[in-house]
């Protein structure tokens, strides 16, 4: 999503404008996204209206940001191939590949493993 259309506070009555890094591009499940360099990945996703970060391993339920300070670990995603990355405290960088996490896998891997299980 174009950064100017995101759910961001343009001017705050107390904080004024926010000091932000440059605009960077990253991908979410292959889709092009925009955010500010150095802000947490979760902040960039929230600004773009992304709610679901992952689906749980056991009940396959969606989860999103919960504590936003790195403690609850609910917001984890696969970032540049590494699963269980806490997006609320991982700074965004140009070109990052962010993927929703299914259990601890990508959607494709997860679907393949489910099929394999069903086949057994």
């Amino acid at each position, binding site marked *: 999503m174009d950064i100017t259309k995101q759910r961001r506070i343009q001017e705050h009555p107390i904080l004024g404008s926010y000091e932000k890094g440059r605009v960077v591009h990253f991908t979410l499940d292959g889709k092009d996204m925009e955010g500010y360099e150095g802000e947490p990945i979760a902040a960039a996703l929230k600004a773009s209206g992304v709610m679901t970060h992952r689906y749980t*391993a056991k009940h396959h339920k969606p989860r999103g940001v919960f504590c936003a300070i790195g403690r609850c670990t609910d917001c984890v995603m696969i970032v540049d191939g*590494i*699963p*269980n990355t806490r997006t609320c405290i991982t700074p965004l960088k140009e070109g990052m590949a962010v993927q929703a996490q299914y*259990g*601890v*896998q990508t959607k494709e*891997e997860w679907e393949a*493993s489910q099929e394999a299980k069903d086949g057994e």
Partner: protein
Amino acid sequence: MACATAYNLAKRGMKDIIVLEKKEIGNGGSNRNAGGVRQSARDVRELPLAMYAVSRIWPHLGEELETDVEYVQRGNLRLGKTEAHKKILEAHTAKSTKVGLDVRMIDGEEAREICPYMSEEVTSASWCPTDGHANPLKTTLGYYRMALRLGVTFITGVTVTGIRKAHGKARIVQTDDGDYEGEKILLCAGWESRKIADTAGIELPIIPERNEVLVTEMEPEMFPVMLGTADSDFYGHQSKHGSFVMGGNSGIQQYYSMPDGAHHPTGPLTAPKISRGIISYFPVLKNAKIVRSWAGYYDVCADKVPVIDQIPEVPGLYIAAGFSGHGFGISPAVALAMSELILDGSSHTIDISPLTYDRFRAKG
């Protein structure tokens, strides 16, 4: 051991069984281990216990305890990188095959076929396809739950301080909660068995040795085998949950700190050492995140196999201790043997004759 033995005794109809525990259920070694259910690389004196457990008990244990003990029988690889490692592995393999265990030496290639994530540096391995692993927490607690159902009473939060004789027989268990009486008393308190046995005039050559286990976050299913190395860099497996459970020790930490009973502290040097061990065999795991580590104490016996015996000098006293870090896998069989010792006067199903309490002799 206590939970499993109590269960076996109650299953055979014994009444009035009381289990005393200082802290909580499953605080000892049966809970604090990496879950190996192994026959390979064992001392031949305890191999009958291991082989009986693997062939007769583990396959049905989950059903019997009405819980998933996560038993996976997909083999054990013990890995080597050097000629010296290979020699260690070959020696174990030779001894085990002599008593009928299906274990053989394989090369690095074949090991990588079994477990494709392994480093190219691995050049040899012993392979025992009937070995495996299980979840120690579910197993120990599962035994507890079933024993409870069969009428066993467990009393936790009570510290045993000694065992006293009455009329020439072991009779009274002294605790910080007063005296408990029993016609038969089984002592299976890990490394702490030693000081309790002492009060009954029996000295067990057992010392504590701290080991630590690292637990990773959940990972995709990668390998079902149990792992160990010739050099004992680490041992462990991937659990059903997906986390890797890998144990080891620093080789020096036990000289620095002795257990204080209440707190099971980990040392600052051990986890890094185990981590290096894991990466050197499985570079693919380098990005896996450790979420927790914990420590437990091996009850290391002078000759590295346990004492499982009734004590003629103190009639009514039974001891199962000194498992030296490999008690979990055989615990279902030990419990069976011990229940027979207690109820029938001898272990008639499994041969435990080399594991007597009075076998220790000075060398030379």
